[in-house]
């Protein structure tokens, strides 16, 4: 048995001599800092969710009908007539939301520990591209069930392009291929959602990982393990504070996967709509071009950006400022490696000003999410009886927009002009358990 296996291995190595070194480079001889904490689970989890989306997505296409007349019915057909179709569909819809949960936390980890800083700018930029493609992918997937929220979501998001001066109206019609979201829109979104964007996404993920493995992972201390002492029990010339990815991080990430799957399974089996956040009530009504749902809002993962769009008023006769603000919010994130010029990576050793600013960023982002989802509009009458809801909401929302953009402005000034008083960074990584 063993000799058969080794003979097979030899056979393979002779014909593909590059594969084993590649496996070693990325697994057994990829040395990662040994002090990863909870925040470092989300990268591998994002990969897991991506696989889930691809597999369940492929099976959904086997019964989904790409036409405005049939799409809604075919989703209910999957939910009822196809054996286990409901499970496959819930795995896909829950996976979509959890993808964003995981990716948001993964991004926040990068900001918190300065993982975007030199020499990992390329990793960060590729990650931001993944995020952009993921948003496009999610939006188009959201349109496919052709419920009333799908329809009006498509209408509103596509209309954003209408604010672009001169070409806006033509562009909107070109994207839809009609005068309203219609059969042609659904068909092209389907093509993009199931093949074009997933291919781009996979390519970007491979590049993101390849770029990471070139420079090595950062860690919660932001310490460069490569520049520290050498020699560990696995290799005499590898960093002392690093451990082989396999088996140590494969078993650790597997444990994370187990824990994550429990949360995912709980949602899939016990709360698949998640109270209307993952699958919205109004999307169980077929698309109707004559009736807009009364609570129109995007999926929860778009709400912070949607709130920025809504909170920025139009002036000079155009609504493009909100659109610029919304895309600017993402662009600023991508530019973070150049805005943040502080020498210290990890928040653990950064100045008090940075820590407070980071807190403001998180609070503003979450608060904008609530504004975008319409939660604040519901809470304001209870908290401020008699107040004008729009006035209070706009004041609050604009404050939060200020908080979000303020973070980037503050960090640039704070680090560019030497205001930051950092703490001493330890020579070696620290373990906290």
């Amino acid at each position, binding site marked *: 048995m063993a000799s058969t296996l080794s003979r097979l291995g030899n056979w393979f190595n002779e014909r593909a001599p590059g594969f084993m070194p590649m496996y070693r480079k990325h697994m057994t001889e990829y040395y990662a800092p040994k002090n990863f904490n909870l925040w470092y689970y989300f990268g591998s989890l994002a990969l897991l969710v991506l696989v889930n989306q691809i*597999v369940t997505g492929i*099976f959904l296409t086997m019964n989904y009908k790409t036409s405005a007349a049939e799409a809604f019915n075919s989703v209910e057909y999957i939910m*009822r007539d196809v*054996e*286990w*179709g409901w499970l496959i569909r819930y795995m896909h819809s829950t996976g979509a939301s959890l993808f964003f949960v995981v990716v948001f936390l993964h991004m926040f980890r990068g900001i918190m520990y300065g993982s975007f800083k030199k020499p990992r700018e390329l990793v960060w930029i590729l990650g931001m591209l993944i995020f952009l493609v993921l948003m496009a992918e999610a939006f188009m997937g959201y349109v496919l069930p052709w419920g009333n929220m799908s329809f009006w979501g498509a209408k509103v998001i596509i209309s954003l392009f209408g604010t672009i001066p001169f070409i806006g109206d033509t562009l909107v019609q070109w994207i839809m291929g009609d005068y309203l979201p219609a059969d042609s829109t659904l068909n092209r979104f389907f093509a993009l959602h199931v093949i074009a964007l997933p291919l781009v996404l996979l390519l970007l993920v491979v590049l993101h990982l390849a770029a990471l493995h070139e420079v090595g992972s950062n860690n919660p201390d932001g310490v460069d393990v490569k520049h520290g002492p050498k020699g560990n*029990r696995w290799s005499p010339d590898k960093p002392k504070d690093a451990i082989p990815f396999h088996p140590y991080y494969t078993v650790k990430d597997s444990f994370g996967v187990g824990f994550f799957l429990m949360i995912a399974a709980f949602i899939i089996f016990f709360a698949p709509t998640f109270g209307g956040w993952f699958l919205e009530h109004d999307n169980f009504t077929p698309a109707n071009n004559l009736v807009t749902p009364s609570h129109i809002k995007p999926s929860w993962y778009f709400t912070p950006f949607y709130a920025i769009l809504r909170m920025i008023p139009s002036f000079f006769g155009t609504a493009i400022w909100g659109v610029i603000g919304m895309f600017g919010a993402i662009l600023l994130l991508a530019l973070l490696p150049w805005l943040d010029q502080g020498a210290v990576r990890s928040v653990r050793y950064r100045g008090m000003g940075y820590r407070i600013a980071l807190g403001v960023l998180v609070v503003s982002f979450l608060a904008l999410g609530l504004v975008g989802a319409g939660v604040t509009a519901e809470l304001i009458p209870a908290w401020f009886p008699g107040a004008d809801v729009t006035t209070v909401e706009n004041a609050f929302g604009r404050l939060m927009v200020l908080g979000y953009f303020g973070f980037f402005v503050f960090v640039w000034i704070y680090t560019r002009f030497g205001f930051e008083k950092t703490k001493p960074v330890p020579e070696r990584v620290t373990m906290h358990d």
Partner: protein
Amino acid sequence: MANEEVVDHGRRRFLTTTTAVVGGVGVVAAIVPFIKSWEPSARAKAAGAPVTVDISAIDAGQKVTFAWRSLPVFVVNRTPAQLAQLKGLAPRLLDPDSSDTAQQPDFAKNETRSIKPEWLVIIGLCTHLGCVPDFVPDIKPEPFDANWKGGFYCPCHKSRYDLSGRVFSGVPAPKNLAVPKYHFIDDTHIQIGVDPEGKS
């Protein structure tokens, strides 16, 4: 350098194997719903449900085709003259006694291959490559058979069957035409897809 002896290899191997096996069971269990999703859906099953057809308008010597599970089902009202030909044909047939049990339910394992002698209920798909045979009922010489006693003729590869759907020797088709499950609800209605005992 840590001491290699500290590592409990037995425990590691045991835990790795146990986790791999349990994880493998989980993966297999997760695959099952995906495999099962390929089975006929509730809609396909509903479309394939037994169908009840009215045969009162089929005159003697006539054939009418009904659809059951998308298959063409021939119902033929055979005349006494046509039935009289069946016995004499036996030497020219491949399986005159319907001994291939897969081709008909037990109730049709007789010379007329039917419940009531005059009523032939049969799936109209040639057992060679699945073409729909022509119904050629008249007892008269035909271009493909000078001694024709009435039956079915497949235009694709010239297979011939008698009026009980029994295949002739020396033609490409290897088996008699299949008889579906069916039963008489009353004298003018039959239900296709259900045995006379009521089992579907």
